[in-house]
């Protein structure tokens, strides 16, 4: 069944061992949500459509190839060599089902009946079109956990609006609150909400699994990414609703400066080298004194404009300029080390190369790990950054090839007979 026996599924280890998930999730946000379940022992069976390949399989992050922006897809590329898919779908099984034909939907129902969790993040209405309502799922599996995640949630006038990370960040306010005053927001250079909405969704699924362990009862779950984003806006949200603050205007947001508490210096300063930066955050007089000592008390540190937290905060333009005269002559790590040794909060702005190749802390903590992949070869992964004294992630296999586990899942788990399997394959149902 598997040419390489290391890819053969076996018993899983971890708190979720024994939980089978029929996983209709796709894109980043959906795949990240179910990845955690797979990492900790759940048998996550990712359901894919051969005629509508999951986007992370197509984004051109290819090993040993030239850099392409993620919009520059390569027509006809091998869906099994997509690095981002591998990153999101490690530890999962992969099957293909064409949900547009009745035989496909019947097969999916058999899989659901043999699972105890069903996950999806399609636009609202897609699962319903396939007849997969919560009511139907309960007929198939009375204690099912049906986890549904979407941008806007499954009710309300905008439920059918389309969204992905950047749209969620815009609509929830997270983009607006990020940037320099008096110019367009700098927002986010990543889909932060693909991560955070995914984690809220993983948490909701785990809450539901725990509830079922305690009571035997399943549930439907509705997680809205935009509502998650609003919960992450921070105290400014209450300034608006409690104090009536209007943030739109020339003085907000504050860039790298802090409004509360009035900390200064608090910024990202140029270090020596091209586009190299070091972040420094000084919160009180004690830290200021240590900072001044650490940089050798140049004359400007005695300037009376910088004598108190309030005056430093009020004179930040001058202060930032002075701090930059010191940082810009130093390597970002040298500045970090010198300030940290004095107990000052400071850190180089690190990129992915720094994190993966030189960061001693991440190496010590074992945050990244490697697994082999039949098409890609050896690949690096982002581990779950949570250390337990009594358990650990069960990283058993890299991401599935398209349809790699069809035979195992359909024949061994669902009991599909050999001739029926052959027919489903030949007719393109799987």
């Amino acid at each position, binding site marked *: 069944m598997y040419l390489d026996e290391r890819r053969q599924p076996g018993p899983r280890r*971890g*708190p*979720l061992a024994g939980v089978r998930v029929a996983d209709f999730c796709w894109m980043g946000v959906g795949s990240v949500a179910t990845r955690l379940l797979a990492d900790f022992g759940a048998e996550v069976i990712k359901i894919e459509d051969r005629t509508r390949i999951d986007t992370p399989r197509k984004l051109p*992050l*290819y*090993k040993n190839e030239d*850099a392409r922006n993620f919009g520059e897809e390569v027509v006809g590329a091998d869906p099994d060599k997509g*690095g*981002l898919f591998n990153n999101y779908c490690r530890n999962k099984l992969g099957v293909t089902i064409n949900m547009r034909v009745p035989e496909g939907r019947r097969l999916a129902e058999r899989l659901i009946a043999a699972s105890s969790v069903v996950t999806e993040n399609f636009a609202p209405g897609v699962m319903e079109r396939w007849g997969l309502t*919560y009511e139907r799922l309960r007929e198939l599996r009375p204690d099912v956990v049906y986890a549904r995640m979407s941008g806007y*949630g499954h009710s*309300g006038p*905008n439920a059918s609006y*389309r969204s992905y990370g950047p749209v969620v960040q*815009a*609509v929830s306010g*997270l*983009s607006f609150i990020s*940037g320099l005053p008096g110019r*367009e*927001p*700098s927002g986010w*250079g990543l*889909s932060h909400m693909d991560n955070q909405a995914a*984690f809220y969704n993983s948490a*909701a699924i785990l809450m539901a699994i*725990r*509830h079922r362990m*305690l009571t035997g*009862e399943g549930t439907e*779950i509705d997680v*809205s990414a*935009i*509502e998650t984003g609003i919960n*992450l*806006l921070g*105290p400014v*949200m*209450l*300034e608006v609703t409690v104090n009536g603050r209007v*943030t739109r205007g020339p003085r907000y*947001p504050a860039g790298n400066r802090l*409004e509360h*508490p009035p900390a200064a210096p608090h*910024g*990202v300063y140029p270090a020596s080298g091209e586009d190299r930066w070091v972040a420094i*955050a000084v919160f009180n007089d004690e830290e200021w004194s240590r900072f001044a000592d650490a940089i050798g008390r140049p004359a400007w540190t005695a300037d009376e404009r910088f004598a108190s937290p309030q005056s430093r905060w009020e004179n930040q333009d001058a202060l930032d300029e002075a701090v930059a005269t010191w940082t810009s002559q130093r390597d970002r790590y040298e500045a970090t080390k010198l300030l*940290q040794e004095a107990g000052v909060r*400071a850190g180089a*702005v*690190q*990129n992915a*190369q*720094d*994190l*993966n190749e030189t960061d001693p*802390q*991440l190496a010590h903590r074992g945050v990244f790990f490697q697994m082999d992949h039949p098409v890609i070869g050896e690949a690096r992964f982002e581990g*779950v950054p949570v250390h*337990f004294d009594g358990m650990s992630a069960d990283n058993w296999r890299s991401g599935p090839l398209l349809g790699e586990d069809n035979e195992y899942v359909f024949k061994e788990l669902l009991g599909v007979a050999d001739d029926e399997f052959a027919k489903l394959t030949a007719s393109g149902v799987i």
Partner: protein
Amino acid sequence: MTEATPYGDLTVVELAGDPAGEALGKLLATMGADVIKVELPEGAPGRHIGPAAAGARDGDPDASLHFWFYNVAKRSMVLDYRTADGMERLRGLLRRADIVITGWRPAEWADLGISPAGLRDGAPGLIVINLSPFGLDGPWADMVSSDLVGLALGGPLNSCGYDDHAIPPIRPGGDQGYQLTASFGHLGILLALIERQRTGRGELIDVAMHDCLSVSAELANPYWFYPRVLVHRQTCRHAQPTPTQPAVFATADDRYVYFALITTERKPWQSLVEWMESLGLAVDLTDSRYDDPGFRQANFAHIQQLVEVFFLLQRADDIYREGQRRGLPVGVLNAPEDLPHDEHLTARNFFVPVDDDAPGGPHLYPGAPIRFSALAVPPLTRAPRLGEHTADILRELT
């Protein structure tokens, strides 16, 4: 019958005083856990961070909106666990607790004269979770940090800022480094609770903000893992290996919308041109030459300019609604003050009134982003005053 809440059976002791630990406590409290925030006599550090609720007297520890935001739905107990007597009481509290949230570096644990594992003495089922800047071990374990410094060292900051690289990377708002750490902590607690259900044994969980952020810059690591290239920050859109066109557009009412122009796919392209034509602003885009994706790609800059004008002539909300009606993923850049009036959020009763201590209440707070058919989310209650529940909790202990 009262419906169960997700954490209605759990008691949590919160010793952490920074936003990571407090945000984690909030995630548990808003889903029904009894979260006892144990504070030293001077109160948690967040009580002394502004802004204050309007009309509050200077230095009022009960009026910080920063504190309110991170501490809704909890109870507060003053307990000086630096004294022997206080530590004894704390141990009594921990024996009845399911979870304790701490937030100390190794040197701070040593100063307190206790260890994370030691908190489980006499409480084998207790889940101890420590959220700290760099974790409990490793060469950087005792370095100091903040949200900004954490985002810098952890990597996400490298992807955020402006096209103009003379401007430094810009920290996204809202303490996202701390709040992301809280999310990972939440997942750790859930996994430990499920494991405990089977084994009866608690867990010691060590979560570092640095670890969390280092795996949370989305494409930056995969771009290094696979083609081994770095991404570069761009204004309010994805950091990429090479520059792309702007995706944030100014509107007639001095606001912004987010729209990533993609010309390669036929359907969204047609929707966009039909939309522009409906307002007489398609110019030459209806020309049949644009049916060819290659031609569209070759004239991307021209199309981008026309779209800029198209948006600049309309109001942001109109663009958002009409674009979405036509199936295009357009987002309006809402300011926080736009949200409580949003008709979609209102229809979902997302914001909930909370009877807090500020005049003119109740005030609207963000409600739960998770809804269950079989589980209730408890009504949201205000953050506690300093020591508000000390007497109650001491009584419960005896």
